């Protein structure tokens, strides 16, 4: 999702009997659905996995500002502009909560940025696709925020307290994001033929990348099994993807759109849709840095950071001067 294919360092999932007493107590608490808090003992693998997942999620929120920010200055009405600004501001806020949640695990925000800028840490593949028309802004809200919600609702029950609580706040805002996206498209499909064509074009381009957000099938993945045992992850990628398709196809029909999948068919027996396989080669290419916008996205983030160094240094220097002056005044007063 916003965190795709997170590694756990596990070779296989241990049983309770194989664990040392401390780890066993930890696992039993997780099994009982108790929340783990920052100061408590936790296995090193659990801590590292959470850092990877939460920071990847945070990076996704931050990089995610860029494709949508691309249309703020071109939004078609003042109201749409205000709504989009509020949305992108929310995403930055999500990044902030998530960086704070990750910091409780002993990593600093600067370190996480460094990992993003060096290309060591990933962010969601979806944000490496371009926003080419205004309909893309609608499609992102509807599909991308929609897929994010699918993944984040179960994360509210994640075993790690700070992450679970960040998710509660975030989920509330994501559903507003999805509604505004759908509303943009609703208005457009009721408009001129050109507007409707723009919406169909957006769906054609965003459908498959949205399905890829859930990551490849992880039924055989030891990392997923370990994450599930730790209750960092609750559902398999395929499960979530199926749920997403089942929820989204009727919404596409309501908009009068054609989902660009010739294999899409309702399956009465399973009570869900059968659908085609995303192009995983494309997915792995995007993850590897070869997506249409990878270079621009990362450059934009690096540039923001590098160009802002003097600003951050200036504030730090001022804070030190001010503290020095306060100390001197105190001494003088004594």
């Amino acid at each position, binding site marked *: 999702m916003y965190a795709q294919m997170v590694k756990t360092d596990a070779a296989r999932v241990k049983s309770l009997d194989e664990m040392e007493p401390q780890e066993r107590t930890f696992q039993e608490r997780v099994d009982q659905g108790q929340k783990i808090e920052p100061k408590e003992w936790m296995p090193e693998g659990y801590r590292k996995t959470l850092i990877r997942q939460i920071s990847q999620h945070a990076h996704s929120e*931050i990089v995610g*500002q*860029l494709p949508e*920010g691309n249309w*703020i*200055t*071109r*939004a*078609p*009405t*003042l*109201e*749409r*502009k*205000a709504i989009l*600004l*509020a949305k*992108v*501001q929310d995403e*930055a*806020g999500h*990044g*902030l909560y998530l*960086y704070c949640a990750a910091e409780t695990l002993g990593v600093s925000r600067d370190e996480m940025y460094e990992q993003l800028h060096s290309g060591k840490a990933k962010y969601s593949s979806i944000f490496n696709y371009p926003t080419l028309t*205004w309909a893309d802004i609608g499609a992102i809200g509807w599909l991308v925020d929609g897929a994010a919600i699918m993944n984040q609702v179960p994360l509210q029950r994640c075993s790690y307290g700070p992450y679970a609580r960040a998710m509660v706040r975030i989920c509330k805002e994501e559903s507003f994001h999805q509604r505004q996206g759908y509303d*943009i498209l609703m*208005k*457009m499909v009721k*408009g*001129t033929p*050109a*507007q409707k064509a723009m919406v169909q074009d957006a769906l054609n381009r965003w459908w498959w990348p949205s399905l890829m957000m859930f990551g490849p099938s992880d039924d055989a993945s030891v990392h997923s099994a370990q994450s599930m045992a730790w209750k960092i992850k609750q559902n398999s990628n395929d499960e979530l993807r199926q749920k997403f398709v089942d929820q989204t196809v009727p919404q596409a029909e309501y908009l009068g759109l054609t989902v660009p999948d010739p294999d899409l068919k309702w399956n009465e027996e399973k009570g869900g849709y059968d659908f085609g396989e995303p192009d995983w080669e494309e997915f792995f290419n995007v993850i590897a840095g070869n997506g249409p916008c990878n270079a621009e996205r990362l450059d*934009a983030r690096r*540039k*923001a*950071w590098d*160009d*802002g*160094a*003097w*600003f*951050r*240094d*200036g*504030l*730090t*220097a*001022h*804070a030190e*001067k001010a503290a020095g002056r306060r100390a001197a005044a105190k001494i003088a007063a004594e």
Partner: protein
Amino acid sequence: MATAAVDPAARQAALFEFLARIGDNALILGHRVSEWCGHAPALEEDIALANTALDLIGQTQLWLGLAGEVEDKGRSADDLAYLRDGYEFRNILLVERPNGDFGKTLMRQFLFDAWHYLLLKALKGSSDRRIADIAEKAFKEVSYHLDRSRDLVIRLGDGTAESHSRMQASLDELWAFTGEMFMSDALDAELAEAGIIPAPQSLKPGWDEIVAEALTEGTLKKPADGYMHRGGRRGVHTEHLGFILAEMQFLQRAYPGATW
């Protein structure tokens, strides 16, 4: 003063003009600030700038909405924002200045906020109830904008040698665009006499004080008052505005009559 000879059509035109001036300032500055979205030097700044832009766009809706009402030709705030050409825009030149580095963006914001704050404060007491109501709401937002931009100008002025020199350079460059805020024409004089707006020059002492205090605290040197650029308030802009509008108005111009 004698209020006997007020021509309603002239008053309506003057009022429309004033509302376009204040609304266009909010719109164009909001546009400039929103260009930063996702590119600010710290996450907290991304959030704060989006918030400022959001306030300004909200104020635009109110001011231009009222302008359309006063004009009474069926034009909405969106019509005014998206379907006028550059020569019909009435914002001061300061707000269309390119963002430059983050320091210049902050300095532009501070110089504008200090004036905007005083203007709105005075407009809360406008004899036109509709204007007073909008000013009441906008004043709260802009007080916060001023607190923030003033604080950052001080801290960066008195930060490192580099942050100081960047802030000083921004101040020196933007200074010549501040005079337009206090220039007055017949329209201003008429509306000021009717108690609808403050006389522009009446805001100058307060602005000087806010600015001087912040600059002193930020160890920045106030530039000498030389020639002041002007023109925006009567529709004569710099080349920058055309590009802002080309971008902002793209969809409304490319798909005439479509609703979004």
